[in-house]
């Protein structure tokens, strides 16, 4: 018979669980509130969510670096803290976008907000562990919630998007599971730090390379899907198009941050072990991703779809930084996303405020370029702000993305990958074309006749959010320094 097991509470280090528990508890509170009174306005839930996220944020800030908790399942290292902060911060910017002047289907559900919080908890679990099981469960919690959030937009395109995302996600999950199985088979463990140690001893065994490569490939497929790398990116444009604009913007940043953290843990491990092959594969995929996504974005007719391709391309950019596997490269990932987040969310929010319920300009698209023709004459401030977002995305200094870009490129140069930096530079040049196309439409063309452009969906909270994003985009030069030093400190502290 088994002896009873005594586990002291301190040894569990429960504080490491606090942030996620807050998010989950918040989700439950919202569900309960709904049970008690079903007629509460969405603004209440929005504010509740923000408050919960605020507490969550504080809880994350209170964590100590490099702690493990709960039988070593939880891992609170630098990247898990900064990624959680970014996830929560990004979510806090995202959620007020629900406060549009018009009603949209998803926001009529209090469950939307609960699911949203559960999703964040899922992301947080995903980044705060190096146990493949918890990573898997975290991914799935977040993904399932996300599929639902997409479908809740409730129109034909969003179901289609959800189905596509879901199906491909299921396939990716299978690949992840299989990859984990191979890793487990190889090392007898599913905790990455142990995996790394065992694998290091087994690298020289004959005939084992195929399994090591194979395991990396299976996991890479799963994460390439999450990160929308070529050729696993195919879902992204359709899902972004089908999802509501803010959610699309959200999806292009936050889930990717979480996936990147896991990728750093996983593939960083492989590269650290000296499996150079993984680095090469990742680099090739990254280059293909940024290039092909860019040239596909060139030919888009819809701004949202263009932004979807552009965010794929940006993901390729960052994936290349990951392949460098230097502290700078990893810092670049977070810096880039931190800076990209504001701009990208801002750009999608701009689409959101111009969203009509019916497609007034094009049979298929909500945001064709024509819609923005001559915007500067109709709504000068809006045009300027959107223009700044576009220029920022194109990497024009001094707007935020530029700093991320040069950091990534500098990291590439420092790691000796000058060709990569040049490829990045050329890709930025190609990318400039499609961002510019929108600028050209807004500033240089006349409005399409007989169609009134309306800022249909605008409301004060949205303006605040966009204003905030604009300030963050324009004034990036002033906060890049603290950001970089914080990120660099955190990442080097966690040994990446």
């Amino acid at each position, binding site marked *: 018979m088994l002896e009873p097991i005594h586990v002291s509470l301190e040894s569990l280090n429960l504080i490491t669980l606090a942030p996620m528990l807050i998010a989950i508890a918040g989700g439950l509170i919202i569900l309960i509130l709904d049970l008690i009174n079903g007629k509460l306005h969405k603004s209440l839930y929005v504010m509740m969510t923000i408050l919960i996220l605020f507490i969550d944020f504080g809880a994350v800030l209170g964590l100590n670096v490099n702690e493990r908790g709960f039988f070593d399942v939880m891992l609170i290292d630098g990247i898990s803290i900064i990624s959680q902060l970014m996830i929560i911060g990004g979510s806090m910017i995202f959620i007020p976008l629900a406060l549009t002047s018009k009603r949209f289907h998803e926001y009529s559900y209090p469950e939307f907000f609960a699911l949203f919080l559960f999703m964040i908890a899922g992301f947080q679990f995903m980044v705060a562990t190096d146990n493949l099981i918890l990573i898997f469960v975290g991914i799935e919690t977040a993904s399932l919630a996300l599929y639902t959030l997409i479908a809740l937009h409730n129109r034909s395109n969003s179901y289609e998007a959800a189905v596509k995302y879901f199906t491909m996600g299921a396939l990716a999950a299978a690949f992840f599971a299989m990859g984990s199985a191979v890793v487990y088979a190889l090392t007898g463990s599913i905790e990455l730090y142990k995996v790394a140690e065992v694998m290091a001893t087994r690298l020289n065994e004959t005939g084992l390379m195929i399994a090591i490569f194979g395991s990396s490939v299976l996991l890479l497929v799963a994460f390439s899907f999450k990160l929308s790398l070529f*050729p696993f990116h195919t879902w992204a444009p359709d899902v972004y198009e089908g999802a509501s604009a803010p959610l699309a913007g959200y999806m292009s940043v936050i889930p990717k941050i979480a996936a990147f953290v896991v990728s750093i843990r996983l593939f960083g491990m492989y590269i650290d072990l000296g499996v150079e092959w993984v680095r090469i594969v990742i680099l090739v995929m990254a280059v293909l991703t940024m290039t092909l996504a860019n040239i596909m974005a060139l030919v888009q007719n819809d701004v949202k779809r263009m932004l979807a391709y552009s965010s794929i391309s940006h993901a390729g950019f960052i994936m290349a930084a990951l392949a460098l596997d230097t502290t700078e490269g990893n810092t670049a990932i977070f810096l880039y996303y931190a800076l990209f987040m504001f701009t990208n969310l801002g750009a999608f929010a701009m689409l959101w405020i111009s969203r009509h319920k019916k497609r007034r300009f094009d049979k298929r698209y909500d945001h064709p370029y024509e819609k923005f023709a001559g915007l500067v004459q109709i709504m000068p401030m809006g045009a300027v702000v959107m223009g700044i977002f576009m220029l920022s995305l194109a990497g024009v200094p001094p707007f935020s993305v530029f700093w991320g870009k040069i950091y990534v490129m500098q990291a590439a140069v420092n790691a000796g990958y000058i060709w990569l930096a040049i490829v990045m530079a050329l890709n930025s040049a190609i990318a400039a074309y499609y961002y510019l196309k929108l600028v050209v439409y807004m500033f240089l063309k006349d409005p399409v006749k007989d169609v009134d452009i309306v800022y249909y969906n605008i409301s004060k909270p949205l303006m605040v959010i966009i204003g905030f994003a604009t300030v963050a985009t324009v004034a990036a030069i002033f906060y890049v320094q603290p950001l970089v030093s914080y990120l660099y400190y955190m990442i080097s502290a966690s040994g990446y």
Partner: protein
Amino acid sequence: MENLVYIALFAPFVSSLFAALFGMTERKIWIGVVASMLLATSLVASITLAYTVYTTGNAIHVTMMDWINAGDLNIPFGFVVDQVSVTMMTVVTLVSTVVHIYAIGYMDHDKSFNRFFSYLSAFVFSMMILVMSDNFAGLFIGWEGVGVCSWLLIGFWYHKPDVSKEENPSVSPSWAANEAFIMNRIADLGMLVGIFVIYWNTGSLQYDEVFAQLPYLSESVLTIAAITLFIGAMGKSAQFPLHTWLTDAMEGPTPVSALIHAATMVTAGVFLVIRANPLFAAVPDVSFFIASLGTFVAFYAASMALVERDLKRIIAYSTLSQLGYMFAAAGLGAYWIALFHLAAHAFFKALLFLGAGNVMHAMHDELDIFKMGDLRKKMKGTWIYMTLASVALAGLPPLAGFWSKDAIIETAFNEHTYFLWIMLVITAGMTAFYSFRQIFLTFHGEDRHTALGFHPHEMYTFVLVAMSPLAVLATITGWFMKEYEAFITKLLPQYEMSEHTHHLASYLGLIVIFFALSGIAIAYLKYARTGDKAWKRDEKIESSFLYKLLKNQYFVPKFYEEFITKPYMMASEVFWTKVDLKIVDATVDNIAKFFYTSGDKTRSMQTGNLSNYLNWMAVGGVMLLVIAAISAMIG
């Protein structure tokens, strides 16, 4: 003294600015008067300076201010008044003053009267800089300055439309102006290169410093410097093959032709060779080439003048021819003789041009001498002046032309370059012939103009009076040759005729006079008689090859037109439409298009069908797996 230098230099400048102030207002005669007075001031100052230099024998050197200082290069605005420059100054201001006064009369009906004076004075200013500068860069300023003024003045009647003329590519004054400018620019490039060579080998552009360094320079450097500088001189002095602009420049108003294209600017090339005589003296081969070219041009231009019908163009050819003489002298080392001929030529040629201007004025701008004849009765003064100038040109004693030209021919003999000597003698005969052909066709023979409806009248008297100094000088200059020699050889190298030549001098002179007289005689027999023996156009001669060749200027302008201008235009067009747009630009656009079309192609992988997406994903995954397997097996 410095003040005098500045007065001489800047009086024309002031005149130019003053006239320019009224450039856009209507014609005011007094502007011409003021301009002429300022020019006269300059003349007086120049003469005073000349006197000073003559008496003291010292050059006056002033440095006004720095111009360009960069690296080790240091170019000041410095001016030197020595024997050579003072000669030029005096000649230039004298002829200019006369031309200014003349122009008051000549241009009195032109509504751009004020503008004309502005340009004319500006020209004089540039010319003064050219001759007075103490360094090559300053010379170049003047060099280009006169070029621009010449451009402005040739194209003075810019409003004239383009009319294509047979035999003659010049279509309008503005065309001729551009041609002159561009041709000069070609030569200027040579001159610039010469300046560069000098700078990089001597470290300076000041004449004195450069010349002091010459002995230390290698043969090749000297040769290159001499050749390139001479290329510059060729352009300004319209030497073959850059000569075509000069005759076309006759599109400009006649005072301009007199001043610029006869007396002053075109002699700048000769001036340069004289100025840089230490350099040219150091490279005998180049000098001999200069002499040969000069002789050739003398003959070549004279031959074209034989058949020319246009009054002014005949004189222009004669200018070319006389410039050839000057270069021959300079090339043979007789610099002071060249300078002397330059001065003498300036006087009689200006006189000749001004006379031609009178005829033009009288004939309402008709220049075809075939349409004139027997004008002497109506234009007595002009007739006298022009005959006098022609005699001087033909080189008959005791007029100026004889002394200077004879000296040049003698030099050719003295240098044992007998071929050049023969050519020059023959040219002297031709000169006499065409000069008098022109005089006879214009002023003698049958009256052909009345039938054509011309009613010529004499020029204003004050104009005729104003021309008188030129007439006097054209007559007497030669008499002071010895004194001038003494004056000028303080600066320029003495040129001594050998004993042998000295011995034969009078015979040589007689040969020249003989040729000149026979030329006049032939001209008289052919053109001056009236009645039955009066001159008639002869179809046979006019259709002969030689006549056509001469008439078409040896087809040189045609050659330029066909083989330089047109190919250049075509090449430009091809470069633009074919190379730049179709290749260079299209490449850039095609790169962009390539991305765009490949975007369109890649886009087709995004079919929208989930099954395809899953296929892509599986293909990607399985391919990666296969690659992993293969690479694991290999490595």
